[in-house]
């Protein structure tokens, strides 16, 4: 664990990507293979499940530190991270451990299986053998919360440097549902077994947002336009007589969307389609909220299947007759996709994302305005001559989203953030006027600069009216412009509405509280866009 802790410290200390890649590449070049494999797994989000409840962990840590539980609980919000709080309150370790990361991962898997008394004894023993950072990492790993500020892209770059294998090839090898228990460093990275690749998806190509209109993209005739759908990016794979559905987060969602099993009946062997999974009714997508109900369920009850059926809105073909065609130009891939889907019945759960015809950018700008009405959040622009790239790369795919909807709202509650933001108030509740009363209608956490968060934090500390546990009710004095992507009816919320992606667009210091928007304003937006 010492070597892994040193790697973590090096990564945690810097925000410079070159320094991170250097540290990772050095580690991948000389750490034991089993540790390298675990490191790749952890950095690509393949965390072990939680091995113990956090309640037990809090109790044991407080007991070991000789503190009353309430005092431990008071420390947690100040630190903002449970694993770190535990690491800090425990007395110094009395021993050391030479066990490697993979040894510790085996121990964590074993203690998860043990009965509670044995589990407690093993955790206490671990705390006593691990120093500050090692102990913190151990706690992160047993609580299933391990995360570090390294993107998959950076890790792949470092891996490429350490192994001499190309980044794109590595990115593909790392896809799928492997775990360190089901593979080895050799089988995954060095000499992949083709049989293991049956369910493996391709790395997704991700678009950049266009900041100022699309004119800079040049001749419009070189571009395809489609609506930008608001669903779950997904890949549907038909191989070996089976089908697999993957999310962009590399989660296997085959069972979650049983409708898509029909892909097996309609698509030939060796087909991989990229598209958007959408809730669908008749001829139009359902609002995202309908899909949201489906995402959280591993298996889907019949009622929900009827209420919120899904389709794959297909826009790209990555594998055709078992052949990886990602290097072919989009226009050619699209032609093959259209041919494949042409034969499908109208009610099939696979639909083509239609191309939006346009002669010039002004015409597309007009079409973009219709997106919200079509249940989309803007338009996509894809270069017709471009291959299908991996990851977020600038140049060939652009999203041109609609400007968000906005309301001016009054801050009424504040709560401290977590982790990096633990000592700042960053989580706010906003209200609009309903007559003389302020009705809370949304929360928002992002959009302010660090300096603004510090400023509002100081203000919150001095303007608290009441405390409800970690939540502070503050003087209704500050107006913020809240931007959001959509608005829906919601019986679960007091205000009767729910927003999609709310965030703080601006701190309206110029605006008196009395001039904030009203619940009627929100209802009008609901009528227009809900």
């Amino acid at each position, binding site marked *: 664990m010492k070597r892994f802790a040193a790697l973590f410290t090096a990564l945690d200390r810097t925000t410079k990507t070159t320094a991170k890649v250097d540290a990772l590449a050095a580690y991948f070049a000389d750490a034991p293979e089993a540790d390298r494999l675990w490191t790749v797994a952890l950095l690509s989000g393949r965390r072990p499940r939680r091995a113990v409840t956090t309640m037990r962990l809090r109790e044991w840590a407080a007991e070991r530190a000789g503190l009353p539980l309430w005092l431990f609980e008071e420390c947690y919000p100040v630190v903002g991270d449970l694993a770190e709080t535990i690491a800090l309150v425990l007395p110094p370790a009395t021993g050391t451990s030479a066990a490697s990361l993979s040894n510790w991962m085996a121990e964590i898997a074993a203690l998860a299986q043990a009965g509670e008394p044995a589990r407690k004894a093993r955790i206490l023993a671990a705390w006593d053998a691990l120093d500050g950072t090692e102990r913190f990492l151990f706690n992160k790993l047993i609580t299933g919360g391990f995360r570090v500020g390294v993107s998959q892209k950076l890790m792949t770059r470092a891996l490429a440097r350490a192994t001499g294998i190309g980044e794109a090839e590595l990115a593909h090898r790392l896809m799928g549902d492997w775990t360190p228990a089901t593979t080895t460093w050799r089988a995954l990275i060095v000499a992949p077994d083709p049989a293991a690749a049956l369910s493996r998806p391709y790395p997704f190509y991700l678009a950049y947002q266009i900041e100022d209109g699309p004119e800079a993209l040049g001749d419009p005739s070189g571009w395809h336009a489609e609506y930008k759908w608001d669903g779950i990016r997904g890949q549907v794979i038909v191989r070996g007589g089976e089908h697999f559905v993957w999310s962009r987060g590399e989660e296997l969602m085959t069972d979650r969307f049983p409708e898509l099993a029909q892909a097996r009946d309609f698509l030939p062997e060796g087909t991989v389609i990229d598209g958007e999974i959408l809730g669908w009714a008749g001829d139009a997508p359902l609002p995202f909220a309908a899909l949201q109900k489906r995402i959280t369920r591993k298996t889907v009850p019949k009622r929900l299947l009827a209420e919120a059926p899904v389709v794959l809105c297909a826009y790209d073909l990555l594998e055709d007759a078992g052949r990886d065609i990602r290097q072919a130009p989009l226009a050619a891939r699209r032609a093959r996709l259209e041919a494949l889907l042409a034969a499908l019945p109208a009610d099939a759960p696979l639909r083509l994302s239609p191309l939006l015809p346009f002669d010039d950018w002004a015409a597309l700008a007009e079409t973009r305005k219709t997106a919200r009405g079509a249940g989309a959040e803007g338009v996509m622009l894809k270069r017709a001559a471009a291959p299908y790239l991996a990851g977020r790369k600038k140049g060939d795919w652009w999203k041109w989203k609609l400007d968000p909807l906005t309301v001016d709202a009054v801050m009424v509650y504040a709560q401290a953030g977590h*982790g990096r933001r*633990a000592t700042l108030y960053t989580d706010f509740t906003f209200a609009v006027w309903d007559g003389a009363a302020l009705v809370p209608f949304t929360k928002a956490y992002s959009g302010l600069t660090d300096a603004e968060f*510090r400023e509002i934090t100081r203000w919150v500390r001095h303007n608290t009216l009441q405390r409800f546990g970690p939540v502070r009710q503050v003087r209704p004095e500050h107006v913020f412009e809240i931007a959001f992507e959509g608005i829906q009816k919601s019986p679960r919320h007091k205000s009767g509405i729910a927003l999609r992606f709310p965030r703080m667009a601006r701190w309206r210091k110029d605006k008196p509280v009395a001039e904030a928007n009203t619940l009627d304003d929100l209802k009008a937006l609901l009528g227009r866009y809900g």
Partner: protein
Amino acid sequence: MSVLTFTERGIHCPAGDFFIDPWAPVDRALVTHGHSDHARPGHRRYLATATAAPVIRHRLGGITLETVRYGETRRIGDAAVSFHPAGHVPGSAQIRVEVGGEVWVVSGDYKLEDDGLSEPFEPVRAHAFVSECTFGLPVFAWRPQAEVFAEINAWWAANAAAGRVTLLGAYSLGKAQRLLAGVDRSIGPILTHGAVEATCAVMRAQGIALPATVPVTPETDLKAYPGALVLAPPSALGAPWARRFGAAATGFASGWMALRGVRRRRAADRGFVLSDHADWAGLNAAIRNTGANRVFVTHGYTAVFRRWLAEQGHDAEIVQTAFEGESLDRAEDEA
């Protein structure tokens, strides 16, 4: 009548009609040390230790200030007053007030570890103790300063070897001199920001031994000082002032650096956990050693610390003051 009372202007002694570290103008102020939340302008008369006096004069200008030696007893009205080392910064004091056989002690800011520069903290027996609790949570546990200095030295040496300037942010009174006295001077030259240098100059003039430093001015030829360590107030690190050092390695030394969240939010390469305040164990030890049953807790995690002390059998109360300690707000603002 109580030996001390807590008023809107500050901690007051009715028997001697004086205030300790008052935040609004008063006739007679007894001042524990020179930090700006304790030594404020506008009082008619000041009393402080002889070691603390030069910095207080430097900061507050033409004030009427009388000095006292550590352990020397002064009668003020019906009160007997003495100052005792608090170990916070050079000259810092706890103030002991005895009226009719009852002893109260006001801690000011304090730490228990001997930093090699400040007069080491001296336990004083008391019936009642007014204690700061800036770091009054058990997550704060300082490592011995020798270990922290070893880390700082290793970092500085590595930066020097890589041809980079090392820019370390620290309060200009106390922390900067502690760093100056504690780092390994054989690694390279030590440069100072004007605010740090001014305080160093005051201390040198009063006979406190500090290593030689080079003040940074617009005329300073930085190339003449390869591998330098630059000591500056935290606020200077993000300011245009710091640009002259090019791609310098940056760090902060503060107790708040114990928290990963705070460390990561700072735009600095490194955070060193070094505080001039007592950690959790230090606060508890200090309170235990006074033998006081009554404890008043001021700036810091007062609500939590009060409840903890009450559970330990103390008669504990919270006192609202205008003291800030090593305030996170200020640490944030100066980033």
